[in-house]
């Protein structure tokens, strides 16, 4: 057969898959078998609906989308009627209208007519549609159904009497979030949507059901009764809390952020955002905002004006430079800062003559810095993750660390992908992994090494020279062999290195071995760095590379070296060192020994916080709501955002503060008039958004696998709602189940060995310092480990990893 006939056959096939039909006299085409409502939406023809949502399955239970179809004996629901060639659909005909009005009358029978006191008023689908389809009075005289509400947690308010049983929230939990927490109990008139028992909704994506609910049954608890939708100004923005860069819409009133909702972007976050993206705004209105520059004179904090504060900063830093040299100054930025801020921070430090600038507060091992790609990326698009057929997570709690990537992986699993994990904690994934190794970082490394060897056997590829030596004594176990089979056979394969792969003392070994696994199996490798880390790398906010990966004259100290070998002066950008740095203990010691610390921060440190004692000057910095910026996500997508409200009090966008600091130091090239000038100058070029670029430039094996083996190893992790200075102050999020509190977790065998019980008060001692906390028995923690979260004052004296000992108090 010739290729031409093949082509014709293929075209015919496509033609056959597309059908042409009419809606309200307008000719429309759509894929055969797709639903009518989708075609109507695409053609801009409005059909009313409640239960239909394009990213959920079709339930067809509200019946609001009934339309007339020629030759059909009765009206058909547009959401559940497949399109067919030559079909004639009428959405505005007498039959359609009467059907829709009938449905509306039934819906309004039990729905309370209390719009003036309902929080959904003004943005309610039922209210809007009732204008078009509702009657002006009700024929129904009997009693209305009443549902007793249950408290489902700090984020979502319920008023289930208003529920119209569309089941969008139920389907979201079942299909998208992967934990079915809501359901329809009872039958007929007595059906209730809810949790049945009093229980909190614990999904990290729960807030999406607020957006989904077409009526006022599920509303935002923190936002409740605080504003009406028509009073709100809507501004598009980007959430900087993780490396996805979810698109959000910020609603403001009177220069105050009132709430955040999801903004659709199919490439990034579809129609969903995580609860962290949604509720972090509460911090913006937190009572502890720093609104005036503050300086410490004679050990007393005093408010002052910008001029004095900046002069004070200049004097303090200049004194350190004079006495100890420029290399005794270092700058640390929080990973969620804007790319422009990273750029100006590194420019300032480098102009002063030092390369001590970094943002990687969650990393301990930097020995392969030179080998890293242009920025730690995903190596593929977020959407393509869904096509993966095998997925290996290394040191990643993807559901909590990057909830929206977790969703994509879940979809891949639903499409038949195998999930495998090499993790330090037996995390709860919504679909359990097929294969897993759970153990200390040392055991994880050994498993990874075994996987490399098993893959070499499986694929017949030869190990590089240094790997042969390193892996000589490694024998892959059954799990590793099974993983090797799946990774090499089920393509496309994806490997993601998560937070734990970065936050241990041998992370370069994790990266090198994972790269070998990727090379052997053909998998795409993704480095799941924190927040806007990609932006920081490209802006040059790393000690070994300048902007756009240019060479630097002078390589500075890394984030961990800067605190391990304390400097005399620090500039901290949006960072609380003892809470953000995974090695909090060292950060604390470094702060305590420093002579002059400049903090650019949106918040006053609370009582007992380190900055209060150690810092010398606090410059009030705008949050991401209050400044323009650029976020670069893990796939290399550059997204800019504008300010949504003006900065509170005297606080200023960090880029302006850094610019003026440059002026005070009389440095050249700090004369920007707008953030656009900064953007133009930094001119970020993104090259490695493809698989081939997002790899280690060379795979170098260590001499020895891992390090010392400890009889009790401390596992440190920043829990989902402790990850940055803003999230930590979002009060509703702190009340959720995902804030584990400063408690030490061990499994019951380990607890017995340590002679401790649930709720016991213990002292956890490490080289860097100790912590007094309570015990929580948790079987997901492996033997010989004690899991203690970072990000809490109570645990901020402990080191990131290594030997820990426990004594009962």
């Amino acid at each position, binding site marked *: 057969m010739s290729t031409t006939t093949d082509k014709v056959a293929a075209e015919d096939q496509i033609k056959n898959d597309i059908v042409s039909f009419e809606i309200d006299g307008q000719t429309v085409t759509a894929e055969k078998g797709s639903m009518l409502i989708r075609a109507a939406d695409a053609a801009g023809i409005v059909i009313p609906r409640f239960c239909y949502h394009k990213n959920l399955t079709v339930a067809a239970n509200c019946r609001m989308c009934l339309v007339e179809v020629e030759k059909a004996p009765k009206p058909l629901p547009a959401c559940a009627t497949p399109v067919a060639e030559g079909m004639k659909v009428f959405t505005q005909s007498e039959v359609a209208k009467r059907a829709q009005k009938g449905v509306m009358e039934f819906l309004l029978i039990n729905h309370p007519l209390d719009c003036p006191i309902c929080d959904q008023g003004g943005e309610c689908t039922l209210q809007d549609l009732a204008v078009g389809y509702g009657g002006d009075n009700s024929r129904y005289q009997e009693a209305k159904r009443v549902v007793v509400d249950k408290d489902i947690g700090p984020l979502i308010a319920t008023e289930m009497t208003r529920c119209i049983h569309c089941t969008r929230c139920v389907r979201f939990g079942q299909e998208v979030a992967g934990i079915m927490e809501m*359901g329809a*109990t*009872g039958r007929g008139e007595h059906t209730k949507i809810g949790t*049945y*028992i009093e229980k909190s909704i614990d999904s990290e994506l729960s807030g999406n059901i607020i957006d989904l609910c077409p009526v006022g049954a599920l509303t935002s608890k923190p936002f409740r009764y605080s504003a009406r939708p028509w009073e709100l100004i809507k501004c598009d923005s980007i959430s900087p809390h993780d490396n996805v860069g979810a698109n959000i819409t910020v609603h403001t009133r009177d220069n105050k952020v009132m709430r955040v909702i999801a903004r659709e972007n199919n490439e990034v976050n579809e129609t969903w955002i995580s609860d962290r993206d949604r509720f972090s705004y509460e911090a913006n209105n937190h009572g502890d905002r720093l609104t005036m520059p503050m300086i410490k004179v004679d050990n007393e904090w005093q408010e002052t004006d910008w001029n004095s504060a900046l002069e004070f900063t200049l004097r303090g830093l200049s004194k350190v430079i004079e006495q100890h040299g420029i290399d005794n100054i270092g700058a640390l930025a929080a990973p969620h800062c804007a790319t422009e801020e990273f750029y100006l921070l590194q420019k300032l430090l480098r102009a002063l003559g030092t390369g001590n600038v970094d943002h990687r507060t969650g990393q301990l091992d930097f020995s392969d810095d030179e080998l890293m790609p242009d920025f730690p990326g995903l190596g593929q698009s977020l959407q393509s993750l869904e096509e993966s057929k095998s997925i290996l997570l290394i040191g990643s709690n993807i559901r909590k660390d990057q909830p929206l990537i977790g969703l994509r992986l879940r979809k891949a699993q639903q499409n038949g992908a195998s999930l495998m994990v090499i993790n330090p904690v037996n995390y709860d994934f919504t679909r359990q992994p097929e294969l897993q190794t759970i153990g200390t970082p040392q055991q994880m490394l050994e498993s990874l090494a075994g996987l490399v060897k098993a893959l070499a056997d499986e694929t017949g590829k030869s190990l590089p020279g240094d790997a042969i030596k390193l892996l000589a004594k490694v024998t892959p176990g059954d799990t590793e062999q099974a993983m090797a089979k799946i990774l090499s056979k089920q393509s496309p394969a994806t490997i993601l290195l998560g937070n734990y792969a970065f936050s241990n003392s041998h992370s370069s070994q994790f990266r090198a071995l994972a790269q070998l696994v990727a090379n052997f199996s053909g998998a795409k490798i993704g480095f799941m760095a924190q927040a806007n880390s990609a932006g920081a790398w490209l802006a040059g906010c790393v000690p070994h590379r300048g902007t756009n990966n240019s060479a630097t004259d002078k390589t500075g100290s890394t984030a961990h070296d800067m605190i391990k070998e304390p400097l005399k002066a620090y500039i901290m950008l949006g960072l609380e060192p003892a809470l953000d740095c995974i090695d909090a203990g060292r950060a604390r010691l470094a702060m305590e020994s420093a002579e002059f610390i400049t903090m650019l921060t949106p918040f006053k440190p609370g009582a007992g916080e380190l900055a209060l004692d150690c810092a010398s000057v606090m410059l009030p910095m705008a949050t991401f709501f209050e400044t323009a910026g650029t976020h670069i996500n893990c796939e290399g997508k550059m997204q800019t955002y504008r300010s949504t409200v003006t900065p509170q009090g005297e606080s200023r966008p960090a880029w302006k503060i850094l610019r003026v600091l440059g002026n005070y130091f009389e440095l050249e090239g700090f004369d920007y008039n707008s953030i656009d000038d900064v953007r133009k100058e930094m001119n970020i070029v993104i090259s490695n958004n493809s698989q081939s670029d997002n790899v280690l430039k060379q795979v170098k094996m260590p001499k020895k696998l891992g390090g010392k083996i400890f009889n009790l190893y401390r596992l440190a992790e920043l829990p989902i709602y402790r990850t940055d200075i803003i999230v930590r102050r979002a009060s509703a999020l702190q009340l959720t189940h995902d804030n584990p509190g400063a408690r030490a977790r061990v499994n*019951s065998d380990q607890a017995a060995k340590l002679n401790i019980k649930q709720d016991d008060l213990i002292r956890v001692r490490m080289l860097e310092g100790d912590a007094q906390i309570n015990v929580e*028995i948790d079987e997901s923690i492996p033997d010989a480990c004690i899991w203690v979260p970072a990000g809490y004052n109570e645990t901020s004296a402990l080191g990131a990893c290594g030997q820990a000992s426990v004594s009962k108090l």
Partner: protein
Amino acid sequence: MINTQAALNLKIEMLTLATREEIDKWIAKYPADQKQSAVMAALRIVQDQNGGWLNTQLMDAIAAYLEMPPIAVYEVATFYSMYELEPIGRHKISICTNISCMLCGSEEVVAHFEKRLGIKLGETTADGKITLREVECLGACVGAPMMQIGNEYIENLTPETIDQLLAGLE
């Protein structure tokens, strides 16, 4: 981070070994990855184990045993009227009042029961012995008026047969 497996095992222990064995027979009837198909049978078996009614702990145990979300078990249990979610009498008498039974005198049957027991439909006697229920057609119109007690159908009810029945109940 919840103690997933340990917590689930603890819940499952609410079910007696005999109950679990009985449920296993039903699980075996369905494909291995569709254990939840046995939920209706499991609810019935556990209800029998627990003296005729189900509480949340037991439903959670079933959810854990069949690896399904607890809410999905609640959905089924609240949908069907044969699952009791509150304590009931030792004997549940379900009287059909649907069309055939009604035509054949179910109203008198109900009245007689109510008079004899001193309770209304839906109530339980003070000694916790008998609960009266009104149910829809049980598919035994040929013997109308009829009722169900336990797993048994009793047909062609008359005041006399009702008295006999009540006298025989412990």
